[in-house]
């Protein structure tokens, strides 16, 4: 399965993941303190130049990841133009774009294994509450393994449906899909138990 991490190593890939995440938190908090569109625009230019300095592929991917924001951008733009408050609208739009772009930059330049290591460290206090982190690691591995399996099962269900009906399955797909997940879960539980349990 593809991750959002850039396959080409950039200098940022080498930075410790924990430091990048802490920096991201501070950056996002600071964004909400800036109230002037001019300052936010300067930060936006700096962030865009930073993307370009890391490579054109990073900049293009970063721009692509901002695309889901357009409905919000449209609503805010229309809203604030109607209120004759363009600078207020610009602050909201710049802040939204910057917060998302900075977070995406951290995701693009941090390997899945590094991110996973940080997650495990953050979750380690849960072991005192009876949720040991190796159990969480097993659950994460199971999800990653079973996404393609369930995907194939659903494709089979869809094929079986379309062999019998000219119409698309629509929501009727959901009952057999959920049953496939439930059955698979019982099998996995049995195999885990047969191999000495989940610990």
């Amino acid at each position, binding site marked *: *399965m*593809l*991750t*959002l991490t850039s396959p080409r190593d950039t200098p940022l890939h080498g930075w410790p993941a924990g430091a990048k*995440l802490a920096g*991201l938190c501070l950056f*996002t908090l600071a964004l909400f303190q800036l109230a002037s569109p001019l300052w936010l625009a300067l930060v936006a230019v700096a962030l865009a130049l930073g993307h370009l300095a890391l490579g054109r592929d990073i900049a293009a991917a970063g721009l692509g*990841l901002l695309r*889901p*924001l357009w409905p*919000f951008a449209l*609503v805010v733009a229309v809203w604030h133009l109607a209120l004759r408050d363009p600078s*207020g609208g610009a*602050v909201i739009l710049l802040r*939204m774009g910057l*917060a*998302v772009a*900075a*977070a*995406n930059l951290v*995701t*693009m330049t941090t390997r*899945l294994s590094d*991110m*996973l290591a940080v*997650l495990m460290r953050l979750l380690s206090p849960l072991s005192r509450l009876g949720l040991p982190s190796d159990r*969480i690691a*097993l*659950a*994460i591995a*199971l*999800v*990653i393994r*079973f*996404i393609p*399996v*369930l*995907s194939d099962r*659903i494709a089979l269900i869809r094929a079986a449906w379309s062999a019998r009906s000219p119409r*698309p399955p*629509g*929501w009727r*797909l*959901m*009952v057999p*899909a*959920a*049953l496939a*997940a*439930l*059955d*698979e*879960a*019982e099998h*996995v*539980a049995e195999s*885990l*138990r047969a191999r000495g*349990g*989940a610990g």
Partner: protein
Amino acid sequence: MERSLSHIALFAALIAVLGFVPQIMLPFGVPITAQSLGIMLCGTVLGSKRGALAVLLFLALVAIGLPLLSGGRGGLGVFASPTVGFLIGFPMAAFVAGLVVERSRAGVGLSAGIGAFVGGVIVLYAFGIPGLALMLDKSLPEAALMITVFLPGDLIKVVLAALITQGIARMRPDALLSRA
């Protein structure tokens, strides 16, 4: 123990896979994403705790950089976007939906419908609307106005969640952990 773990993991995988399937087209051409239906089903089928944990597991995988949200979205950016309130509300929605099904004495279909409505609409919006208001600097009524377009689709999902949960209960009565 193993059974809880495998059910949580498999339903987290199911939510992810439902994000890849094409949008479900309802009659009269209303598209709905199957993924949020998967969140409701986590609660109504697995029950409160397991359902919420399945959704949390799914969100953890999204956060560490897997593009599993519908439309191929993922990574830390989605937690900085205006819809972050809905993401935070997802596990709560599954928890409340599961709690209603566990506690209610009504039939499976009816209680799943009530659970999906209370969890997947009321609780979810109670997180989503303040999140939107905060991120876009709007008042709560203004933010609520922005998302009214999603209400009809969500109400259809409540009905579907009830029908699907009832279908599962009929075919695998033992598998419905929320009623076990």
